């Protein structure tokens, strides 16, 4: 029987050029669905990638108990000191490898549009550059402690084209000089501006206010040591998380929204495309009624005929899926955008990312659509009686 299926399928596929118009429409219909499907998911993928890059397994973040993000957390000086000396945190030259930080969301007018953009201004301690090893100065120099100086993440520098090294900006009643630009392997901190925490506290009159402690663990397994010792301590209420988990949590709301909306749109589009596939496949079956009847008369089984209809649809759908995936890749891959992350109310820059997995998913989706669409026509083809079929003009 498989030989029969193969023979009829080859025959069908070879006759595709004769039905080029309707076959092309099926392919285009499925390609369109795949473009949108892959496009929307590549947006979620790109956002997730930025948010989770730099989530080092050896880095822990300590926030006040219950706080879901840094902006909703508060730690005082004594707590910060105790956290830094807790077991599990690595040391270098006798000093804990930990940075207590404070963030303020500042507004700045964007180049070109002049529209205000929310940016995180992060005050850090010198150890921050050790804890977040991925942060490297790319242009200029780092800020000096005790000075109103800032360095811009790569993403901020790009978005705020009007703010470059050597210029100054007013935030929190102080004038800050821009002294450098930093990279962070494309992670979300590239959407931030960094400065000395003491200066930030002074400028915004938030003395002794801290929001988070970032620390390098002795080893990835030391997280539990740190967690047990801090969460058991009755003097303060804090939550200890791995940095990578924290970043994943921060991106959950937005990736969830994009994926849900994307799934909804893809589902409806697929429904539309399936109905389209049903009518084109059905038309193809009808127009070949005599041909199918002849095959049956020659001894081909009804299953073979049905399978061949399905196989032809799968081949066309696969072609559509491939066209769609390539188009999505050309249109969206690397497309740089930025959006507001509701967790911190600040802008995060990211790029659409069309990954091989997404392409595979898109193609699988295409084949599934093709097969579902061909189900009914193939059943019709199988049920055709030979005599009636041959009598068709």
């Amino acid at each position, binding site marked *: 029987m498989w030989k029969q299926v193969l023979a009829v399928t080859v025959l069908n596929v070879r006759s595709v050029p004769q039905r080029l118009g309707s076959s092309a429409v099926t392919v285009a219909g499925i390609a369109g669905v795949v473009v949108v499907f892959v496009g929307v998911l590549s947006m979620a993928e790109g956002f997730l990638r930025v948010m989770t890059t730099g989530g080092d397994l050896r880095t822990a973040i300590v926030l006040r108990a219950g706080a879901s993000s840094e902006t909703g957390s508060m730690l005082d000086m004594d707590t910060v000191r105790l956290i830094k000396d807790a077991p599990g945190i690595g040391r270098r030259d006798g000093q804990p490898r930990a940075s207590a930080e404070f963030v303020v969301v500042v507004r700045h007018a964007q180049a070109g549009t002049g529209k205000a953009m929310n940016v995180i201004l992060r005050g850090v301690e010198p150890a921050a550059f050790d804890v977040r090893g991925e942060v490297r100065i790319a242009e200029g120099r780092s800020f000096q402690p005790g000075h109103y100086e800032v360095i811009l993440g790569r993403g901020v520098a790009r978005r705020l084209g009007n703010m470059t090294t050597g210029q100054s900006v007013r935030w929190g009643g102080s004038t800050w000089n821009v002294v450098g630009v930093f990279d962070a392997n494309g992670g979300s901190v590239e959407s931030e501006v960094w400065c000395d925490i003491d200066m930030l506290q002074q400028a915004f009159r938030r003395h002794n206010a801290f929001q988070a402690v970032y620390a390098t663990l002795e080893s990835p397994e030391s997280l539990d040591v740190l967690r047990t010792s801090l969460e058991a301590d009755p003097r303060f209420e804090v939550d200890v998380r791995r940095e990578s988990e924290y970043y994943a949590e921060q991106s959950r709301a937005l990736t969830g929204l994009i994926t849900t909306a994307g799934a909804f749109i893809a589902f409806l589009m697929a429904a539309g*495309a399936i109905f389209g596939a049903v009518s084109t496949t059905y038309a193809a079956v009808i127009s070949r009624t005599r041909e199918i009847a002849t095959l049956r008369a020659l001894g081909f089984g009804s299953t073979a005929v049905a399978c061949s209809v399905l196989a032809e649809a799968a081949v066309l759908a696969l072609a559509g899926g491939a066209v769609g995936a390539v188009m999505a890749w050309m249109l969206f891959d690397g497309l740089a955008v930025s959006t507001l992350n509701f967790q911190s109310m600040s802008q995060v820059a990211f790029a659409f990312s069309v990954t091989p997995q997404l392409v595979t998913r898109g193609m699988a989706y295409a084949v599934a659509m093709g097969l579902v669409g061909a189900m009914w026509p193939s059943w019709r083809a199988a049920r055709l009686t030979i005599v009636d079929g041959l009598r068709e003009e």
Partner: protein
Amino acid sequence: MTPDRRSRSAPLAMSMKYLPLIWSNLMRRKVRTICTALSIFVAFLLFGALLSIRAGFARGVDLTGADRLVVSQKNAFNQPMPLGYRDRLAAIPGVAAVSYVAWFPGVYRDPRNDFPILAVDTNGWFEMYRDLWTVPPDHLARWKSDRTGAIVGQDLADRFGWSIGDRIPLTGTMWPRRGGGAWDFTIDGIYNAGPASGRNASLDLMFFHYAYFNDARIVGQDFVDSYRVRVADARTSGEMAERIDAAFANSAFETTTSTENAFVRAIAEQIGDVGTIVMAILAPVLFTILLVCGNTMAQSVRERTNEVAVLETLGFTRERVLGLVLVESLILPLAAGGLGVAAWLLIQRTNPTSGTVPMSSLSPFEIGFAVLMAVAIGVAASVAPAWQVHRLTIVEALRRGR
């Protein structure tokens, strides 16, 4: 059967007269017609959904008052402003009322139960937002006399099954309470959408007394996050914003003042250009589905070339035959598309995303656009095959097989 040649019947009258003929043509291949109709139906359902989302992002912000200003720390978001600014703001000529708000980051039982909690001015807040939120007078009175009272939105009350009188312990994640432990609140009132709030009423907020918050916290006393100012004359909003910023220029806390409208829009705009994204999705969706449908519809016309010739033999004029083909091609997208948009309008009423995705109802302009799209599909699908038929002589057409 011979049509009346004297009367130049209007298309509508013609389609009424020939409805049975058109209907039987449509039902010639039932499966194909139904599939095409369903495909168009889905395309227009999606069209409605995406345009509602687009409108939700674009228009949701227009609902906030134009006579209210937001005064916050200059070039910063949610940074503290001294409580003493209240009197200074109230003293500025043209200011009708001043209220203030401070964000209280907190969770109810579990970190996942996190919703906006705001400490507000007891005697000014709900008065200022009367158009947006309605609180029954007895609820408001009870709340005002209860120091640890709270007023919650209807959606929030429904979410946790709260009713008046319930005691709610909240963990403050940012503000430790004097003496430690949870912050206890009593539900004194439930607010609902006010007369001017429409769909975007935000009924998931919790409000409590700033005074309680201020007295019980250990740090940050006598600071608020932002002031809300109502101006005496809404037409002077812009001018008033400048006057306020000028009054605090070079002070310890400089201000940025904007209308509430502009303030909300500035945040909404930062989400990104939702409109462009929506249109980028919509264009390939519609193009694809319409391509498929257009092809099927055109095919059904081509198949009937010889039937057209029969009609002409019977005395139908070319124009009339063309008209029939056109009407037939218009009926399908208009009916299926109309049902699709109508289905979306029904779905939208049920609030399918429970408020997580902003949506707004479709404007007559957008509905008109949908109708235009449907007409365009019908015309595009019928013009080419109709023209082919038109060019053939009866004899040629009759000779053509299927």
